[in-house]
């Protein structure tokens, strides 16, 4: 297939699948909390609907960064699609993508002029420490497989079995990262309810639709990456099953767990990451 068509198809799949999975996530959370919840397709409809809503740029916003940061978020996750599902490139580039995502959280909050956005921006800096588990997981995968290339990691698992079985604690560490990024997560300190919607509070109308477009792609890429680097070569059906299972687990956890305060959130994640890192090293080298 032509490379550009391949990228376009993957971006569209990522947007549609990501939106539906996020819709499913809300539905699961609602059902666990004994609410009917919105239809699964609601997240997708909201993303599209916002493109036609009245939009204005607040006087307190820092232009052109206020709009530019939304474009940067889309750029970041299209790079994620290219490096992940399209080219099976390097995990290090995806680590860079996650790092830039944190910068987007920071700058979207600070450029808005809203006190909620600024508070979210401060928390984004604090929660940057939670990227350590991702780096540690990537390092552990390198120790085990001798490569950081996703294509070669898939081939390694084809020959030796899924990494989730040989280094399960690294998979758990990566799963905690997914949990962190999921909506209404106990670790989601940048979008806590006391901050309205945190760094996105002042991005309404079309800009919110654009943010939701990128976040759908982000969620899809994260789930795809987890399934690919820990469960090996999978068919499309197994990807769908895997994504739905992960969404059920995160939805259940998020529906039943209160939001941690920022310090507890960061310390919990770092503690789990530290324990999993040492445990995995022991499993690899002893």
């Amino acid at each position, binding site marked *: 297939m032509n490379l550009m068509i391949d990228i376009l198809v993957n971006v569209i799949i990522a947007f549609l699948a990501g939106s539906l999975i996020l819709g499913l996530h809300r539905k699961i959370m609602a059902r666990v909390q004994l609410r009917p919840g919105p239809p699964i397709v609601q997240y997708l409809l909201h993303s599209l609907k916002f493109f036609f809503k009245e939009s204005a740029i607040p006087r307190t916003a820092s232009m052109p960064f206020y709009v530019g940061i939304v474009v940067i978020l889309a750029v970041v996750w299209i790079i994620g699609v290219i490096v992940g599902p399209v080219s099976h490139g390097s995990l290090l580039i995806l680590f860079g993508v996650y790092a830039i995502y944190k910068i987007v959280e920071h700058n979207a909050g600070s450029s808005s002029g*809203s006190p909620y956005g600024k508070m979210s921006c401060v928390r984004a800096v604090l929660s940057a420490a939670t990227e350590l588990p991702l780096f540690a997981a990537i390092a552990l995968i390198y120790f085990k497989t001798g490569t950081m290339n996703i294509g070669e990691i898939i081939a390694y698992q084809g020959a030796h079995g899924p990494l989730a079985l040989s280094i399960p604690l690294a998979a758990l560490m990566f799963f905690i990262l997914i949990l962190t990024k999921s909506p209404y997560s106990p670790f989601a300190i940048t979008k806590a309810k006391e901050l309205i919607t945190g760094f996105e509070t002042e991005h309404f109308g079309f800009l919110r639709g654009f943010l939701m477009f990128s976040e759908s792609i982000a969620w899809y890429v994260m789930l795809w990456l987890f399934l690919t680097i820990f469960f090996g070569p999978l068919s499309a059906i197994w990807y769908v099953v895997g994504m739905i299972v992960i969404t059920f687990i995160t939805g259940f956890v998020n529906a039943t767990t209160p939001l941690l305060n920022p310090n507890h959130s960061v310390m919990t994640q770092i503690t789990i990451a530290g324990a999993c890192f040492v445990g995995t090293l022991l499993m690899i080298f002893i």
Partner: protein
Amino acid sequence: MDKQKIFCIILLILSVVAIVYACIFPLATWIVYLIAIVFIPGFVLALGLLTMAKPRKEDAEERVKEPFTGY
């Protein structure tokens, strides 16, 4: 026609042309990546700025103050 609308139309046309060109003609891999990274978000941005509803003139001033007036 205001400047923003002209900018959006140019960006939209440029994005569509670049993406369609890369779909039809074989290009170096890095050029295709560049087109995807720049013009897919550019296309969505231009489309959104064109499709979004604008406030009425008498409401425009009030809208930019919303919702954190005086901060």
